[in-house]
């Protein structure tokens, strides 16, 4: 017998392998006993080899044990695919222990990617229809975890039957299996939708929980289902109300809250049903208020329910009072000692700050306190929320808090904090001086973390505030004297000193204590910046230029400056070298121009996004206004052109008969070839010339296959008594168009309505440029019609 053979064979192997098979617990012991990773691997590999052999030999008795060991090893990360077929065999066995391990193995080892998974479909089908309850439970569990689309389609009828069975143990699992099936095969929604309403009447919490999950899944997938289930809102409200108002029930109570998990699920479903729907939202309002006020908040379970309630209130069309209540609950959460609750409160408030700004404002002090959190994720949220809450009335107080935070905050938040402060300052600065002070403070505390355009913004700001030049330059000088390492600060300070050095040396400034600075100190400071190894090349550039500017601002002689400039002529940095050479040349050859060149800079045009927008808007407005009068004016000129049939030599007073604008307008616009691609409307024929019986008609054809082409046929008719001879029609077009004249049918227009002359013009408009044509008809003929 195979088993005996194995046994005999194994007597010659090392002791460990003698036992027919290790129990799972023994294997775990061994693995635990392994001191190193390598040892563990060795143990496991040996055992796997043994397991493989056992599978090959097909020992049914111990198969489940082998598979259990294999699953354990699989959990540790070792490959276990050779156990897949064993799962099938175990599932097909009649022993419960076998089935148990088999189904677990199927859940862990098989999935859609392997073809083997379809093979268990039949076993599952049998188990679902004929097995005892625990077996049905196993089958449903596995099906809901790894069932592929084909399996789901095959087994849907069985699952549906189980939904209607009396036993709640199986029903609750069947319902959740249905959820999985719908995810895999959306068409099955129609199968599982009808039982839902009926299932809601059950009292068993497991069934209710499953049903609500199923309804949620159905509603999320299809708007039709959503509409259908809106009618159960009253019932859901009733269930929830019962849960909330019933007293302590031993069955499902957790920390004094009856079945918080069911409550949370119901609230979530109510949220989906009430979103964007007035009627449902109204039905829920009372209940939500009741839940919000009655839930015990001393323990986490109650807070979980409360949190879900708040989310639901914010998402549906709730009454204003209810929304304020929700925000207040969140505010209360912020004061809670449990960090987790503070975390969810901050996250939710962040979501709400746009829509319910004033309600959230009320909790500003608490939010600001949260800036002091030790947990980084909490303080980050507090920072975002605080920045969102800054407005013109609280800007000074908030900025103070935020700046204090900037000084002590962890490094990864510095950049965000700095840019947030600068942005808020820009939007809400009460005075320019405050704005400058704020930026200065940010630059000194977190200079390395500010964005690149902060320097440009600050210089622009200072430049524009003329009354504050003296103040700014003084403060910047003081800051620079203390610390030359923060590059943005150094750059701005250098620029300022260069521009307003004369104000610095004046000594008097009302807003700040008088400072006695003499020229040598200023120059020494700038030189220090130039020479410091901490200065970036850009900073050096600023400093050099500042020095140069000072040469015109300061009273003393410029020898020191000239010396520095000439040293830098041989600097290795190309940019600096170029500047130094230019400045040096300025000293030597163009000294007479130096003062003019180094004058104070004019205010730089603000290049920011706002300026662009304004420019765009004004451009658009200008275009629109241009477009409007243009047609009318061209219209008038067109009229004149068309009616200007004679050249001035004729002498006849040509008084253009007043054509009322609409047909005249029509006259003009008909000759407009629109450049946008609207469907080419047929242009009606046009009479362009009529005088003493001679009539000139234009007819237009635009061939559909070539919309850029226009074919104009000119027809000249003569209803007068005499022929018109030497009739020539000419046309001129602007350069963007191409004109091709074909030969006329003749050049004598016979009298008395005889055969008209026709001539074809082809006008090609490849660039679809809009143009207006003004045909000037000048009939020249030798007949005595006196034109």
């Amino acid at each position: 017998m195979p088993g005996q053979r194995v046994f005999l064979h194994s007597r010659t192997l090392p002791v460990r392998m003698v036992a027919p098979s290790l129990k799972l617990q023994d294997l775990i012991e061994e693995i635990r006993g392994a001191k190193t990773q390598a040892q563990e691997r060795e143990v496991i590999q040996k055992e796997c080899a043994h397991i493989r052999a056992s599978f090959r030999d097909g020992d049914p008795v111990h198969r489940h044990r082998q598979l259990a060991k294999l699953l354990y090893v699989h959990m540790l990360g070792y490959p276990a695919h050779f156990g897949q077929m064993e799962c099938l065999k175990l599932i097909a066995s009649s022993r419960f222990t076998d089935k148990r391990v088999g189904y677990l193995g199927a859940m862990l080892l098989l999935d859609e990617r392997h073809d083997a998974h379809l093979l268990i479909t039949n076993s599952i089908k049998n188990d679902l229809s004929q097995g005892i309850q625990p077996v049905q439970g196993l089958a449903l569990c596995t099906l809901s975890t790894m069932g592929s689309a084909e399996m789901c389609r095959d087994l849907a009828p069985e699952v549906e039957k189980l939904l209607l069975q009396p036993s709640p143990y199986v029903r609750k699992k069947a319902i959740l299996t249905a959820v999985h099936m719908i995810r895999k095969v959306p068409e099955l929604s129609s199968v599982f939708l009808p039982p839902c309403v009926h299932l809601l009447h059950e009292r068993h919490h497991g069934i209710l929980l499953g049903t609500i999950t199923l309804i949620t899944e159905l509603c999320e997938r299809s708007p039709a289902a959503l509409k259908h289930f809106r009618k159960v809102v009253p019932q859901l409200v009733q269930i929830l109300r019962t849960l909330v108002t019933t007293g302590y029930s031993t069955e499902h109570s957790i920390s004094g809250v009856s079945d918080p998990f069911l409550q949370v699920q119901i609230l979530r479903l109510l949220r989906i049903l009430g979103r964007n729907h007035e009627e449902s939202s109204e039905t829920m309002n009372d209940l939500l208020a009741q839940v919000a006020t009655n839930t015990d908040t001393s323990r986490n379970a109650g807070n979980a329910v409360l949190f879900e309630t708040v989310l639901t209130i914010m998402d549906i069309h709730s009454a204003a009072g209810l929304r304020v209540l929700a925000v207040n609950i969140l505010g209360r959460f912020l004061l809670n000692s449990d960090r987790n609750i503070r975390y969810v409160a901050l996250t939710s408030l962040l979501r709400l700050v746009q829509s319910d700004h004033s309600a959230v404002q009320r909790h500003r002090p608490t939010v600001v306190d949260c800036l002091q959190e030790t947990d980084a994720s909490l303080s980050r949220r507090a920072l975002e929320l605080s920045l969102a809450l800054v407005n013109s009335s609280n800007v000074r107080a908030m900025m103070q808090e935020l700046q204090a935070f900037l000084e002590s905050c962890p490094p990864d938040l510095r950049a965000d904090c700095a840019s947030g402060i600068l942005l808020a300052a820009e939007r809400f600065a009460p005075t320019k001086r405050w704005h400058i002070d704020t930026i200065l403070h940010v630059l000194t505390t977190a200079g390395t973390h500010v964005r690149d355009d902060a320097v440009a913004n600050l210089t622009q700001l200072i430049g524009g505030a003329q009354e504050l030049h003296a103040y700014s330059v003084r403060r910047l000088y003081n800051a620079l004297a203390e610390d030359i390492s923060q590059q943005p600060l150094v750059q701005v300070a250098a620029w300022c000193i260069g521009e307003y050095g004369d104000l610095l040396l004046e000594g008097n400034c009302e807003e700040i204590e008088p400072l006695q600075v003499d020229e040598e100190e200023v120059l020494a400071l700038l030189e220090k910046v130039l020479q410091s190894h901490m200065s970036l090349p850009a900073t050096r550039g600023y400093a050099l230029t500042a020095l140069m500017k000072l040469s015109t601002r300061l009273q003393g002689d410029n020898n020191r400056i000239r010396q520095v400039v000439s040293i830098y002529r041989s600097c290795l940095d190309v940019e600096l070298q170029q500047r130094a050479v230019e400045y040096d040349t300025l000293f030597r050859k163009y000294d007479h121009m130096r003062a003019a060149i180094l004058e104070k800079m004019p205010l730089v045009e603000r290049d920011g996004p706002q300026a662009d927008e304004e420019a765009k808007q004004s451009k658009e407005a200008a275009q629109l206004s241009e477009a409007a009068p243009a047609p009318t004016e061209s219209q008038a000129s067109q009229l004149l052109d068309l009616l200007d049939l004679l050249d001035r030599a004729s002498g006849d007073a040509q008084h253009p008969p007043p054509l009322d604008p609409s047909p005249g307008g029509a006259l003009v616009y008909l000759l407009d070839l629109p450049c946008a691609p609207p469907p080419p409307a047929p242009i009606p024929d046009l009479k362009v010339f009529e005088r003493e019986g001679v009539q000139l008609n234009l007819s237009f054809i635009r061939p559909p296959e070539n919309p850029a082409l226009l074919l104009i046929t000119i027809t000249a008719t003569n209803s007068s008594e005499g022929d018109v001879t030497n009739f020539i029609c000419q046309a001129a077009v602007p350069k963007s168009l191409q004109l091709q004249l074909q030969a006329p049918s003749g050049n004598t227009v016979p009298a008395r309505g005889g055969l008209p002359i026709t001539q074809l013009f082809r006008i090609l408009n490849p660039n679809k440029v809009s143009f207006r044509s003004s045909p000037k008809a000048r009939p020249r003929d030798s007949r005595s019609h006196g034109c």
Partner: protein
Amino acid sequence: MVNKQGQTRLSKYYEHVDINKRTLLETEVIKSCLSRSNEQCSFIEYKDFKLIYRQYAALFIVVGVNDTENEMAIYEFIHNFVEVLDEYFSRVVSLMIMFNLDKVHIILDEMVLNGCIVETNRARILAPLLILDKMSES
């Protein structure tokens, strides 16, 4: 479930993850949980899910969920799970979990089906398992 040394004691995936990716995922998750101090909150943002963890002596129980779940409810659920284990094993310790991994799987399967909570009542969860035990003894 992971211990402080980073060894996985139990893992259950309701979304398919390749086996080689699993170990990497687990190591990263463990690292982020172990590096948290006592003063930090129990919710971590990891890639595009949220991790909710709770520490019981030397064992960390970590649950990964997507954005729509209520973190606090999951936090409560972890505790519920531990209480069920406690009742079954009469004062559970992590060694017991290790040696009775199959039973723990059964309990977990009674509570969570394909990522959805199905039963939270202790008696109802343990009933089938107790019947099974009786059957295997006899």
